[in-house]
């Protein structure tokens, strides 16, 4: 069920990857069944760089969606996901940047053009509103208007998230 690349990426056969020429997946990533990467969008500013960039040792769980953010009408901007990132089941990513060592748990909705800095944990079911900036070492939970909260995440997570992502690769 996996396609293994020479750089150690493992991509599920039924992961939906459109516009593969516009997608760069660094080494040792895992992309689970049903994950979808929308690389076939029109960019507002044509560029030679990738539309979707995924850093090394990142882990995209089943049925998550990576959609480049909308800049204007149906024109998009690129999306970059850092190294050692874990994107949960059914999570939708429409934001612009995710830093290195970020865990986004299951069922999150990361809305248009948000930015998540390094070393963050976004808890299950969180909605990150558009254009939100999540500073480094934050723990985020909840839905805006009801219980949205950005708290402090221990700096111990820098190492812990990296190990988590590497171990996940060995356990899948």
């Amino acid at each position, binding site marked *: 069920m996996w396609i293994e690349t020479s750089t150690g990426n493992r991509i599920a056969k039924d992961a939906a990857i459109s516009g593969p020429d516009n997608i760069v997946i660094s080494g040792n990533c895992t992309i689970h069944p049903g994950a979808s990467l929308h690389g076939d969008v029109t960019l507002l500013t044509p560029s030679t760089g990738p539309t979707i960039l995924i850093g090394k040792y990142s882990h995209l769980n089943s049925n998550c969606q990576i959609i480049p953010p909308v800049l204007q009408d149906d024109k998009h901007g690129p999306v970059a996901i850092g190294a050692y990132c874990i994107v949960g089941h059914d999570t939708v990513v429409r934001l612009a940047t995710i830093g290195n060592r970020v*865990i986004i748990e299951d069922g999150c909705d990361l*809305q248009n053009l948000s930015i998540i*800095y*390094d*070393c963050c*944990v976004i808890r299950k079911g969180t909605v990150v*509103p*558009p*254009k*939100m*900036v*999540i*500073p*480094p*070492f934050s723990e985020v939970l909840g839905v*805006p*208007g009801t219980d*949205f909260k950005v708290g*402090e995440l*221990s*700096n*111990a*997570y*820098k*190492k*812990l*998230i990296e*190990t*988590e992502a*590497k*171990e996940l*690769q*060995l*356990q*899948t």
Partner: protein
Amino acid sequence: MSKIYNDSYIYCPKLATHRTLDGFSANSVHHLSQLYFCPSCQAHKSRYDCYHNIECKFCSHCITDYSHTSNDTQRCAKNCFVCPSCTSSLTIFITDHQINGKLGKAFQFSCVYCTYTYQSGVITSPKSLHSIISSEKKEAQHQTFYKYQQQLSTASDAPVKQSETRLKNLSLSNISRTPDSPIDTLGPEDISEVRNRVEITTHPDHSNQYPVARKLTVKKSYKCLNCNTFLLLPHTEDGLLPTTNKLRVKFNAVDYMPSIKLTNTISPTILTTPPTETRNLQLECRRTFLINLMNPLEVDMKIHVGSLPYIADNFITGGNKLKFKVELSIPIPDIVIKSSGSTKNLIKTIPTACLTTKNTISKAELISRMGSALFKEKPEDTLDVSESSESLVAQGAGWSLIPLFISVQMNDETDTWDSSDLLDIKIPLYITVQAELPQAIKVLKLSKQNLSYGYWNVIDIGTYQVTK
């Protein structure tokens, strides 16, 4: 073995000298990842055991550094506004207007997430958005007072007589003041603004709510309450981008204390069928669990795992818990966990019980560690758990596995067992650690020559059904 998602907790006594367990509550236990380790006290510290100080504050949106402003500055002074009802960002549109022949501008704030909007009045002289909003807030207060005044002057001249007791009972409790809106007076300029104001739109749903300046993000340092040693200190030189996270000092508990996790015994069947966790404990039948211990130090760790002969009442919940006694025993309580040291290969540092067969690398490692034991006809457990055997312990780079025996007994033999007996079990283990001083502590030249500390680690094993 996940150090982020696990059911292992460290007990934090209210007093550092207090070593007995009061029970398991959210206030008394923390995940290892949440704790600091004080190199001077040689003990773990939660945030509640620390002083903290704000070393740096900045706006996460415009990255303006506010570290050198007064303590009262808690919000961004630039054009960074958030929605008063959902705290999402507000976008600002500017529209041009003409008032009495003068050109002016109005500002429309809209929330990017919810339906909130705010329309400012027309401004004819340059003014910051902050002062526009604060003067409109003041204006609204003045209009409210004006309305009250009007009502008072049109009201009947004869005041309603209040009884004396009723007057005495009037309380001041409803008077409140929001700290973000100090009441101050209108200047002449503000008043002209009020007069020039034209009603453009109203916003009935949020009529009392004004855009709010964005809260600043802070970076804190933490110091041990007991001995004043820095446990965390961020770098805060001028010119350093506030979003960079360089640390001058960090003493995280995960770097000094072993990670502990309980797993079921490794069964050879995992090579053919996925392990289904049995959530049963059979009465009077010994069940073996494995304690997985991982050493984060660059030196070997000598560990003693202690426990009471049975689990105390307050660590078991469930309807009929008093009927049962849950006995514990640790046949090999003393072990040395080698440092994972220079082991570059991550797979070698994963305890056997946490390897899977789903991944080819993991499966190959599992086979190489377990060897022929996996292919024996039907061994009870692949780890030899005969009490005399040395092979009781499985070891690898930076980890060890030791068995833990659990058995459930009836407290009173005359009591009857029934199939609905569910027990929620937490296992307290007293861990003592001894090691040479790690380099990061050695350089502090403290009085202690070795690392030596003890603490309670509580493992939540979840709900088990007691079967006969």
